[in-house]
């Protein structure tokens, strides 16, 4: 398909050039395959010849007189009789053997390696073996041997008579292979060999087939989109039913069942073709369903009409269908081999060839073109093929699982690699973020030092240059020291607990107020103080502490307060808690409007503007009220401190 698709856009000359190339490819692939198949054909034929079970020729009885249709004539076994549809008056073979009791250390037996379809054996007129009782022994597609011990009391010293009645049901001709009579020890091994090959082995194969059928059916049930498993399971189930269901012996009451069993072979083979098509990934053609018609016809006719019609139909329709299916299968695998050149197509191709050879051999046997004692091998080889295919499929399934595993392994590796890359990039990102944070911190520190300490030191220099003495320089230097402590203190990680910063501030402020003889009232309304703020950054702390410092400085310097009260409280208006810090003094206050002594009020106004500015940068709200009885600065903290500086201008 892909080759055709690839060729569509190419031009005519390329097409012409592609054709010989393709032919060359075909030849280079098909010829070796066909040679291989020829080799397999030869090996199979040789193998069949070699595997032919040998019988103890010393005890063979070949010369019989046969009475068929009232006509008695001498025959030499193996012997074919005409095909017949009635069980009445079966061909009757009479032979003789010599028994000497001196030789009879062990018991004697009569051994029939192959007959078709059923036999009744009598020695000296006493029936001692009737194979009709063993339904499986009479199946023409099995090569079941029979052995029976001859009771010693029946044997006469010298000449004995053996008679065989051969029951035949058409359309196949009746067949009686050489009969062996002799010591049981001599006959038994040959019988065991044949039983092993033609009875036990098929049962073993059928057992495998049934197990594989279950496995494949489960696979199909779990993977409905792969009908190939279901098809093969169905074929195997049919094979198993066919192998284990007892075939009806005429005149069977359940002749309907016979029809089902007969129909199984063509349906099975058609299923195998479906499997082949699906297995190699082709679409099942709609007209391909016609392949099932012969089997269904046999089935329907078997259900409607009694025997022997289904058997005749089976011979006419079923067996050729099997052959057709095998040839189709051979073609399919050959195509697959040419296209895919993989182990699966090679293996299945070889298996199909072997089965095909066996089928041809059986056909030749039926048509009496070759003589091999009428041993049918196609069923056996077919079972073997099914088992091989089933095993192959299971193997393929396991390999697919392995691929999934290795894919999962690759996936894990890939994910790990991706994870590592991600980690590395995350680390880079983190490094960058850390560097940025460090730079920010440095900038902040510079600004804080510049804002406070720098200005104060410059002021100290200016004061000393102008020859000021004592108090003013001391104040400026103390302010500088205080600011330095504040900046250093703010570097410490307080884990979002503003109370820790306020604690240090209280301590410093108390020390600062002590010489002025001003009391600092400290009231924390809630046990915890203000709520925790994980997002709290040092620059927030500095702004807040500077606001409080400014408020205290104003109270001391300009309001002549005797008492300053700091109240820390937490409120919750339903949108989460927020802290409020109030600084109240009992000084004489100031007029917020700003008229009065220009110098002092100008300074106060600047201080107030600074405070508001700082509060705004932290997202806090500053509230100022002042009258003659005192000043109250109320700082309402935000519920969440802003990440970036909200300073305006």
């Amino acid at each position, binding site marked *: 398909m892909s080759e055709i698709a690839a060729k569509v856009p190419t031009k005519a000359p390329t097409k012409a050039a592609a054709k010989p190339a393709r032919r060359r490819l075909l030849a280079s692939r098909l010829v070796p395959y066909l040679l291989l198949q020829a080799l397999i054909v030869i090996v199979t034929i040789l193998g069949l010849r070699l595997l032919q079970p040998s019988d103890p020729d010393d005890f063979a009885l070949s010369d019989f007189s046969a009475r068929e249709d009232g006509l008695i004539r001498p025959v030499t076994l193996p012997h074919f009789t005409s095909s017949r549809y009635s069980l009445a008056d079966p061909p009757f073979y009479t032979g003789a053997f010599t028994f000497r009791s001196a030789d009879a250390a062990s018991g004697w037996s009569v051994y029939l390696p192959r007959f078709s379809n059923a036999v009744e054996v009598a020695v000296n007129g006493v029936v001692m073996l009737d194979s009709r009782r063993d339904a499986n022994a009479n199946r023409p597609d099995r090569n079941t041997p029979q052995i029976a011990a001859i009771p010693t009391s029946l044997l006469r010293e010298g000449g004995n008579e053996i008679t065989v009645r051969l029951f035949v049901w058409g359309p196949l001709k009746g067949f009686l292979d050489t009969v062996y009579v002799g010591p049981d020890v001599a006959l038994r091994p040959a019988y065991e060999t044949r039983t092993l090959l033609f009875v036990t082995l098929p049962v073993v194969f059928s057992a495998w087939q049934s197990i594989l059928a279950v496995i494949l059916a489960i696979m199909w049930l779990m993977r409905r989109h792969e009908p190939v498993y279901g098809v093969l399971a169905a074929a195997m189930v049919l094979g198993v039913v066919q192998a284990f269901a007892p075939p009806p012996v005429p005149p069977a009451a359940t002749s309907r069942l016979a029809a089902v069993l007969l129909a199984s072979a063509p349906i099975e083979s058609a299923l195998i073709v479906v499997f082949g098509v699906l297995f190699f990934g082709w679409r099942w053609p709609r007209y391909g369903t016609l392949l099932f018609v012969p089997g269904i016809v046999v089935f329907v006719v078997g259900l409607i009409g009694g025997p022997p019609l289904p058997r005749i139909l089976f011979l006419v329709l079923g067996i050729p269908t099997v052959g057709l299916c095998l040839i189709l299968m051979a073609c399919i695998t050959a195509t697959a081999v040419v296209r895919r050149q993989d182990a699966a197509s090679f293996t299945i191709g070889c298996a199909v060839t072997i089965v095909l050879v066996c089928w041809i051999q059986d056909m030749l046997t039926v048509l009496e073109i070759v003589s091999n004692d009428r041993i049918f091998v196609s069923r056996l080889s077919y079972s073997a093929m099914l088992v091989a295919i089933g095993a192959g499929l299971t193997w393929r399934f396991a390999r697919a699982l392995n691929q999934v595993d290795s894919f999962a392994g690759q996936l894990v590796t890939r994910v790990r690699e991706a994870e590592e890359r991600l980690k590395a990039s995350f680390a880079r990102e983190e490094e960058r973020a850390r560097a940025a944070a460090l730079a920010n911190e440095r900038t902040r520190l510079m600004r804080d030092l510049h804002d406070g300490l720098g200005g104060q030191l410059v002021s100290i220099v200016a004061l000393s240059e102008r020859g000021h003495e004592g108090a003013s320089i001391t104040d400026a230097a103390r302010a500088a020291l205080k600011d330095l*402590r504040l900046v250093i203190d703010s570097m*410490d990680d307080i884990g979002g607990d503003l*109370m820790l910063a306020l*604690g240090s501030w209280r301590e410093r402020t108390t020390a600062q107020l002590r010489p002025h003889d001003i009391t600092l009232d400290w009231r924390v309304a809630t046990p915890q103080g203000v709520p925790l703020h994980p997002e709290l950054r040092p620059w927030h702390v500095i702004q807040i502490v500077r606001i409080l410092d400014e408020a205290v400085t104003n109270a001391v310097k300009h309001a002549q307060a005797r008492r300053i009260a700091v109240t820390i409280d937490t409120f919750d208006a339903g949108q989460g808690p927020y802290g409020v810090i109030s600084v109240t003094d009992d000084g004489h206050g100031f007029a917020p409007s700003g008229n009065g002594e220009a110098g002092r009020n100008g300074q106060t106004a600047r201080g107030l503007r600074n405070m508001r500015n700082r509060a705004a940068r932290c997202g806090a709200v500053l509230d100022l009220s002042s009258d003659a009885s005192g000043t109250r600065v109320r700082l309402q903290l935000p519920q969440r401190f802003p990440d970036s500086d909200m300073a305006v201008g």
Partner: protein
Amino acid sequence: MTEQGETGEIITILLVEDDAPTCWRLQDALVKAGYEVRSAGTLGEARSALAAGAPRVLLTDLRLPDGHGIELIREMRQRFPDTEIMVISALGDEESVISAITVGATGYLLKDAFPTDIATTVRDLVAGHSPISASIARFIVRRTQGAAQNSAEPPPGPVLNTARLTPREIDILWGIAKGFSYAEIASHLGLSKQTVPGHIKNIYRKLEVHTRSEAVFEAVQQGLIKL
């Protein structure tokens, strides 16, 4: 006016400070308060001053021209266990104060403290009341948290063994760190106000690492060193 100890004798102070103006300032404040003050500008001077006898109080700066005040504190603790030791710090930063405490100091004095405060601090120390600042308390309690979290790398700053602090002592430190007064802490924790300063001194003593081998033992106990 002469400041006297419990037994009545004059309290002697050895002041070790290399910056002359600071030294004068402190000495003035202490002498004015009635203490007998000997001053030294270097480690060597301090040691020779000690030859004349042990002072009741040692006040020392950490950075000295011929060595570190820590060495002097350690020597003092070994030779004169009864001497109260205070470190003089410019900023009262945790780094210097805590490292002094771990070798045996039980107090600190800010260089810019007002003269009255200087005298009061020394008097309190002799009376068994060690001073502590909110930031130092904060530093110690944050170390107790760090030890509980068992973090892989030790936090920066001096090594501090907080394992021997009792929950009560840690509560007191928390109160100080958050700016509560001794009276407030005492009422919160159901203590008498007078016992809080004594607790502080106990805390300092527990943070002290006495010998080198003990330091190693503590480090092993805390999992800082793996043997």
